[in-house]
C-alpha cells in the first residue's frame, strides 16, 4: 500500500478547492461554515508565515555575523601568515636550508635523535686570520669576513652542501645528510665545491687588493669521508643539527696542514674522486688526536680530459687521422717523437 502523500499547504489547497462549488450552490449556512473554516486556516497560515519570516531573519542575521567573523578571521590569518613568513625567512638564515625546508614542511624530526652515516666533511679557515684581524679596523674586518662567508656560502649551497656552522673564520660543511646522492657523488660534489671556492678566492683576492686591502684572505681546505653521527644534538630545550665523530676531527686536522690556497683530502675521499681531479700524494703524516698515519692528497685542479682522436689536414699534403686508443704506449711515444722532430725541422 502506498503511503498517503504529504505536500505543503495540502489542507489549504483542499479547502480552497471546495469554494467554487459552495459559492455556486449559494447556501448561506454552507457558506457561513466554509467562511469560518477558511478564516481559521487563513489565521494559521498567517501565523506560520510570521514565524517562518522571523526565523528566516534570525538565520540571516546569524549568517551575516558569521560572514563578518569569517572575514575578520581571514584577515587575522593573513596577517599571521605574513608575520610567520617573515619570521621563517629570518630563521632560515640561522639554519641549513635543507633543515629549514624540512622543518617547515613538517618532515624534520625535532627530537634528540642521531644516526650513523657516511658523510664527506669539509673544513676551511683563513690563513693568519688572527694577525689580519689585529691589523684591520673591526668594521672593515666584519665587512670583508661577511663578504667572504656570503660568497662561499652561495657556492656551497649551489653544490647541495649542508652548512653546519661558521666557527670564527672557519667554515664547517658536510655532504650526505639530510639529502644524499650516495657516498661517491657526495664526495665528488664536495671536492668540486672546494675547487670552485679556491677559484673564486682568486677573484675575491683581486677585488680586495683593488680596494686597498693589504692582506687579502687566503684559505686552506681539508676534506675527509667517513662514518659520523649526524642528527639533533643537545637537549629538548635547545637542539643543534650537526655531526660528531673521529672522522670530523680528522677533516679538521687535515685542513690544518693544508697549503694556503690549497685543498688537502684524505685517501678515503680521494678514492671517490680519483678520475675527477689531479691529486698529488703527500707523505703519510701523524695528526694530533689521530692514532694512525694519515695519507693525504693535495688537489691541484680538475683532470683535463684528453682528446681520444686526432685529425690534421694541411694543403701541403699532410694528413693525420688516428685514434689514441688504437696505439700502445710505445707506439704513441714513438709517434710523438717523430712529430716533435718534424715540428722542429719545420719551425
Amino acid at each position, binding site marked *: 500500500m502506498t*503511503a498517503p502523500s504529504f*505536500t*505543503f499547504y495540502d489542507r489549504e489547497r483542499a479547502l480552497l478547492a471546495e469554494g467554487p462549488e459552495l459559492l455556486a450552490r449559494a447556501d448561506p449556512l454552507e457558506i457561513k461554515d466554509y467562511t469560518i473554516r477558511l478564516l481559521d486556516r487563513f489565521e494559521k497560515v498567517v501565523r506560520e508565515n510570521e514565524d*517562518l519570516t*522571523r526565523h528566516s531573519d534570525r538565520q540571516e542575521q546569524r549568517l551575516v555575523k558569521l560572514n563578518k567573523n569569517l572575514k575578520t578571521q581571514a584577515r587575522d590569518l593573513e596577517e599571521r601568515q605574513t608575520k610567520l613568513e617573515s619570521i621563517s625567512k629570518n630563521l632560515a638564515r640561522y639554519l641549513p636550508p635543507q633543515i629549514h625546508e624540512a622543518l617547515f614542511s613538517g618532515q624534520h624530526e625535532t627530537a634528540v635523535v642521531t644516526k650513523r652515516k657516511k658523510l664527506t666533511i669539509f673544513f676551511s679557515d683563513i690563513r693568519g686570520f688572527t694577525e689580519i684581524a689585529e691589523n684591520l679596523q673591526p668594521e672593515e674586518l666584519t665587512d670583508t669576513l661577511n663578504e667572504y662567508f656570503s660568497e662561499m656560502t652561495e657556492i656551497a649551497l649551489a653544490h647541495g652542501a649542508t652548512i653546519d656552522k661558521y666557527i670564527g673564520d672557519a667554515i664547517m660543511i658536510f655532504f650526505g645528510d639530510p639529502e644524499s646522492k650516495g657516498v661517491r657523488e657526495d664526495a665528488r660534489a664536495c671536492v668540486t665545491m672546494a675547487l670552485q671556492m679556491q677559484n673564486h678566492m682568486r677573484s675575491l683576492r683581486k677585488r680586495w687588493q683593488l680596494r686597498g686591502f693589504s692582506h687579502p684572505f687566503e684559505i686552506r681546505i681539508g676534506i675527509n669521508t667517513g662514518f659520523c653521527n649526524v642528527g639533533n644534538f643537545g637537549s629538548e630545550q635547545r637542539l643543534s643539527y650537526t655531526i660528531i665523530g673521529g672522522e670530523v676531527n680528522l677533516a679538521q686536522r687535515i685542513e690544518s696542514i693544508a697549503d694556503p690556497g690549497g685543498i688537502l683530502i684524505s685517501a678515503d675521499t680521494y678514492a671517490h674522486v680519483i678520475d675527477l681531479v689531479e691529486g698529488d700524494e703527500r707523505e703519510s703524516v701523524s695528526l694530533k688526536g689521530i692514532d694512525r698515519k694519515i695519507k693525504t692528497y693535495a688537489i691541484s685542479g680538475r683532470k683535463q680530459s684528453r682528446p681520444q682522436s686526432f685529425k690534421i689536414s694541411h694543403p701541403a699534403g699532410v694528413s693525420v687521422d688516428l685514434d689514441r686508443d688504437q696505439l700502445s704506449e710505445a707506439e704513441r711515444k714513438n709517434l710523438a717523437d717523430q712529430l716533435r722532430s718534424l715540428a722542429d725541422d719545420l719551425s
Partner: protein
Amino acid sequence: MTSLNIQATDRTPEISIEGSPPRMRISGESFPEDVAAFYGPVVFAVESLVDSLTERLHVEINLAYVNSSSIKALYRIFEGISEIHSKNLLESITWFYPDDDDILQELGEDFKDRFPDLPFQIEITA
C-alpha cells in the same frame, strides 16, 4: 500503536516513536533535500497515533539546526500532537536547545506561543 524509527543522516534528524509509555523523539539537524518526502511518513504516523495510542505520549524535540521548510513540517506535526492532546493522550512536549543557540530557543518559544494549550517545556540540552 503506530511505531516509527528513522535513522539520522547528515541532513536529517533521527525520529522515533516507540516504547511504553510511548515516546516520540526528534533529534539532530534538519535540512532535508525533499522535506515533504522526509516528513510525510512522520506527519501521517503522528496523525494515526490519535487512534492507536493507549497510553499518554511524551514528545522530545532536540534539534541543532532547522531550515524553514522543516519548520513548516513541524507545524503539521504539532497540529497532530494538538489533536492527541485534545484526546487527553499527551503527557508532555519538551523542546531542547543548545545552550548558546538563541535561534533554536526562540523557535521553541514560537511553537509554544502558537500552541498555548499544550504542556510545553523548553530546556537547555544537557
